[in-house]
């Protein structure tokens, strides 16, 4: 029977949760990289044994880890000792250098601030080449590796999209979402808090903002071309021109690859939230987790509810079976929801309270796989043969 591997990044290390296709008995491995912040781990779909992890620390900076055996062992690409003195250290997997003149973006107080690399928020392995991987950085930029994360090169024209006017959100100025179009290897969507959504159709040589239709009342021009705090994007691989978005406030969709967005918040109890996901087999079934805002950032009314729309938005139903419905005040962060692709599709999410939940039936019933992990930052799922 096939199975799943759930990759959980937390504020104090990473965990791997494994189960067979029934998804009722779980093995928990970890913490990996104990004490380090793991913003994200993601496995390759080309080779499920290849997993990339972003490990960081305020003290020691960024480290990239790579596994070639499904997470049993890890290495820092380029971290092996040099055979002889070369004058140049070989360690480069954590070397993220902005291309050309670094320039400035806008700081919180409106003054120019030099671009400074802080960490990798998101790793997105190629859909066709196990050694190609994209990385979303804070301060906002996209880096690409063609050698399995040994070396990285920025795709600099993204920052040319009026990057000097980008301003950080409360969590920083970061590329947190990278979506690869499975039908067109040259098309990539990214999202940046708080600059907006962008798309390339030539593999990253050029980018364009795709924010028409977004309306953000927290910026001087609510309909501006850039400056929107996009929290997350999601698409279904069978229809990559249809993209769903959790904006700071409002849930949005586009049917034309971002040329125009429409509001599909409908009957949600609050239209603020972070993650958004599409059912792996039903392109019009979408999941969000409404969060109370603007400053509380915990679930609405003390109830942990996933909302599902089976109609591509506007009509939403709460999914609560197995989730706490009183005295619950956790958040679910933008990279902390994922799906598997088993025949009966599983939905997963992790909370800032350290729980990781699974629904093996598309959201109808939920149970906690683990209760007491550190603050969960990201959840990804690998479906294993």
């Amino acid at each position, binding site marked *: 029977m096939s199975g799943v591997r759930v990759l959980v990044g937390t504020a104090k290390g990473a965990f791997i949760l494994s189960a067979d296709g029934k998804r009722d008995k779980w093995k928990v491995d970890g913490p990996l990289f*104990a*004490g*380090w912040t793991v913003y994200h781990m993601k496995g390759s779909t080309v080779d499920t044994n290849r997993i990339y992890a972003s490990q960081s*620390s*305020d*003290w*020691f*900076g*960024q*480290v990239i880890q790579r596994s070639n055996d499904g997470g049993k062992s890890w290495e*820092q690409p*380029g*971290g*092996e*000792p*040099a055979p002889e*003195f070369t004058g140049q*250290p*070989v*360690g*480069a997997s*954590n*070397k993220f*250098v902005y291309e050309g003149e670094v320039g400035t973006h806008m700081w919180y107080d409106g003054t120019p601030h030099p671009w400074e690399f802080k960490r990798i928020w998101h790793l997105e392995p190629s859909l066709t080449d196990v050694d190609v991987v994209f990385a979303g950085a804070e301060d906002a930029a996209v880096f690409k590796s063609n050698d399995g994360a040994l070396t990285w090169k920025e795709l600099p024209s993204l920052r040319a999209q009026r990057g000097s006017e980008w301003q950080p959100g409360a969590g920083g100025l970061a590329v947190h979402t990278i979506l690869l179009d499975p039908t067109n290897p040259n098309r990539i969507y990214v999202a940046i808090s708080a600059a907006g959504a962008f798309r390339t159709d030539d593999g990253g040589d050029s980018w364009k903002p795709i924010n028409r239709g977004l309306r953000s009342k927290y910026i001087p021009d609510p309909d501006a071309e850039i400056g929107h705090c996009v929290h997350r994007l999601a698409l279904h691989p069978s229809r990559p021109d249809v993209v769903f978005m959790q904006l700071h406030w409002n849930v949005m969709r586009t049917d034309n690859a971002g040329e125009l967005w429409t509001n599909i918040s409908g009957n949600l109890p609050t239209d603020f939230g972070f993650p958004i996901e599409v059912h792996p087999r039903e392109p019009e079934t979408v999941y969000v987790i409404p969060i109370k805002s603007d400053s509380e950032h915990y679930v609405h009314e003390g109830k942990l509810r996933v909302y599902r729309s089976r109609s591509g938005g506007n009509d939403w139903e709460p999914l609560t079976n197995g989730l706490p419905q009183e005295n619950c005040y956790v958040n679910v962060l933008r990279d902390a929801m994922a799906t598997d692709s088993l025949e009966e599709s599983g939905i997963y999410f992790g909370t800032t309270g350290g729980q990781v939940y699974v629904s093996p039936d598309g959201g109808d019933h939920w149970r906690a796989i683990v209760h007491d992990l550190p603050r969960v930052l990201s959840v990804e799922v690998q479906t294993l043969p």
Partner: protein
Amino acid sequence: MTTHTIRVVLPFHLQTLAKVGSEVTVEVSDPANYDCVIEALEQAYPMLCGTIRDHVTKKRRPLLRYFVCSKDVSHDPADSLLPQAVLNGSEPFIVWGAIAGG
């Protein structure tokens, strides 16, 4: 050219990354300064590149500290010469994480 065997004490998380114990030794040549120690450390343990000082600017990461002979020398120039006690191995060069409580 005179070379020295320098004892270097690493914080826990860098020990884990480098898969070493709390103390390692590196060889440096005269004139032996703080940067020479870090360069030798990065040569011997490339997985530490970028974790103690920035890849490009070579500046010490802000939340790391260098201690030498019971003194915090973090803010001394990086080309400051190592004291005799470190050169002769009686004292280690200590790389340490700044304390954070809470």
